[in-house]
């Protein structure tokens, strides 16, 4: 084998190239007109990159979509106080409460958003606009199991034995389902002991506990599981992949979570961030994002709902959705996580 030969000149050029490459991200940010927007991975990332980038460009700015789950967005913002890696965050009320408590986001100036008046008052948050409502429920594979009526079915009907997957309390989707189950089997949404007892009485349900909804989507594709707690977006994504997946609104009501864009405290590209927010709530964007595979519920009043979305939820039903008490959830979350871990690990 021949030895690797490298001259000093080549080494110098390599080093210079590496140094130049290392400065690229900073160079990109130095332009100052690019909004760095944190977005959920998967459907959101694809949809926002495709639909919003041209709209933000029309407004004279660039947009970089950075995929990260809401919890990870918070962790990264906390890791670099004063120098946030994102100009905007995308999150539900659970994480928003944490972000406000830790002074990570700031109130917005609605006068900078041309489409602000197109939103219902309930979507005009002082910390940022609501871009969609994530409606949660139960996803199931109609080839493998019958249509469940609600959460109770999953524990009491033997047809689902060993085919239901759950996640821990790290997941917002799971927490919303568990608070609903606590209402059914316990004294209210805080009575998580009733939920833990339910799992103890049905140990087969613990077999398919995984870490996240993303893992469940993979397992659903492989036919490893037939039922999981989901958002309508999860089901839309599975259907877009050609999979047999259906959504069920639980008979006790669908837990729902508004998804908001927030302005990060210390954001470096504030004008670009506002342009991105405005694009996200515009009719032009929401008309596209309401279509499969994203099927996001439009918060802009001028946008008509598609039959597909109306099958999940109509505008009139929004008020009857179940909106969890995130302050209560955040207060108990670490204890619930630990108790569930011990239960699952046996």
């Amino acid at each position: 084998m021949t030895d690797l030969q490298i001259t000093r000149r080549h080494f110098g050029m390599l080093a210079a190239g590496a140094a130049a490459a290392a400065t690229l991200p900073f160079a990109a940010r130095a332009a100052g007109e690019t909004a760095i927007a944190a977005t959920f991975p998967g459907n959101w990332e694809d949809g926002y990159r495709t639909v919003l980038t041209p709209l933000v460009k029309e407004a004279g700015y660039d947009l970089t979509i950075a995929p990260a789950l809401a919890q990870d967005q918070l962790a990264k913002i906390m890791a670099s106080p004063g120098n946030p890696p994102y100009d905007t965050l995308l999150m539900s009320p659970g994480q928003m409460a944490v972000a406000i408590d830790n002074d990570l986001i700031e109130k917005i100036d609605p006068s900078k958003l041309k489409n602000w008046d197109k939103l219902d008052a309930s979507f005009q948050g002082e910390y940022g606009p609501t871009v969609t409502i994530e409606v949660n429920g139960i996803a199931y594979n109609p080839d493998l199991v019958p249509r469940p009526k609600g959460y109770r079915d999953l524990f009491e009907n033997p047809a689902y034995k060993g085919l239901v997957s759950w996640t821990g309390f790290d997941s917002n989707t799971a927490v919303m389902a568990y608070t609903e189950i606590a209402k059914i089997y316990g004294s209210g949404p805080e009575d998580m002991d009733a939920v833990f007892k339910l799992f103890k009485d049905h140990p087969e349900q613990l077999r398919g506990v995984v870490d996240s909804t993303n893992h469940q989507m993979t397992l659903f594709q492989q036919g490893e599981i037939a039922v999981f707690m989901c958002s309508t977006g999860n089901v839309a994504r599975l259907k877009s992949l050609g999979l047999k997946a259906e959504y069920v609104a639980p008979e006790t009501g669908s837990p729902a979570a508004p998804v908001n864009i927030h302005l990060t405290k210390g954001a470096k590209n504030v004008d670009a961030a506002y342009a991105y927010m405005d694009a996200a709530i515009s009719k032009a964007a929401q008309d596209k994002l309401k279509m499969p595979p994203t099927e996001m519920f439009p918060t802009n009043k001028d946008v008509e709902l598609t039959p597909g979305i109306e099958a999940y939820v109509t505008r009139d039903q929004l008020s009857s959705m179940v909106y969890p008490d995130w302050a209560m959830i955040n207060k108990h979350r670490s204890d619930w996580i630990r108790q569930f871990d011990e239960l699952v690990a046996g």
Partner: protein
Amino acid sequence: MKASGFPYVIPMLVLSVAFFATPLAVLIGYSFFGSQGASLENYGRFFGDAFNFHVLINTARLGLETVIGTTILGVPIALFYWHGGRNARQVIIFLTLIPMLTSNVVRTFAWIVILGRQGPISEALMALGLTGSPISLMFTELGLVMAMCQIDLPLIILPLIAILSRTSVQFTEAAQVSGAGPWRILLTVLLPMILPGLLAGWILVFASTSSSFVTQAVIGGARNVYVPQLIYREVGTLFDWPMASAIAVVLLLSTGLLLVAMAMISRHRRLIGHA
């Protein structure tokens, strides 16, 4: 007397201090941040919960099981390389290196297919009549160890190959001529020779397995909790960074202790022989 080589190691020292020692010191320092200032509060909370011991033991056990599995699989492959011709050696090197060129994440997701209800393992067991219905090895420790063994196998094969490449086959031939049987040759001739390579492989495999967050999470599911998942949760869900740092320090120390123990065992005079 030879000139000192110290100036030549300065760049490496600077890099090590800047990018390894300093972050490690920050991590250790952070682990002492308690609600009332500097204290051992986080360590107290960690060791005060029996569940955490269970998780630590789980993590160490997973590492050791993978070390055993990769050793059983890796040593014969390395010996085959040693005795093989040029073509056989090239094939073995190629097959060892190719998986390393794919991401751990990709290999992990491939294992979901292999271990699943409709995967080849389940199909084979059904074809052989060993099971009447499809079985899934997902979310089991056995499935996770199988995946980890495949993912980490190159880490033990490569050090062994490096050692054996510098070793003459005549050693074993001499032992054979002297009347030693295959087991005696393996234990008294080969094992002492390949022990440094084995030790390097064990260290790499154990460290890689015990910190393999993605594979543990995806294949092991939530029923098999390991220390990296605890750390991730403290950082990403509960935002308790001092606690996460304390758990990371505990993982570092416990892993380090096990590796030192492995090194001491491998240096035992009975193992390495003495003239």
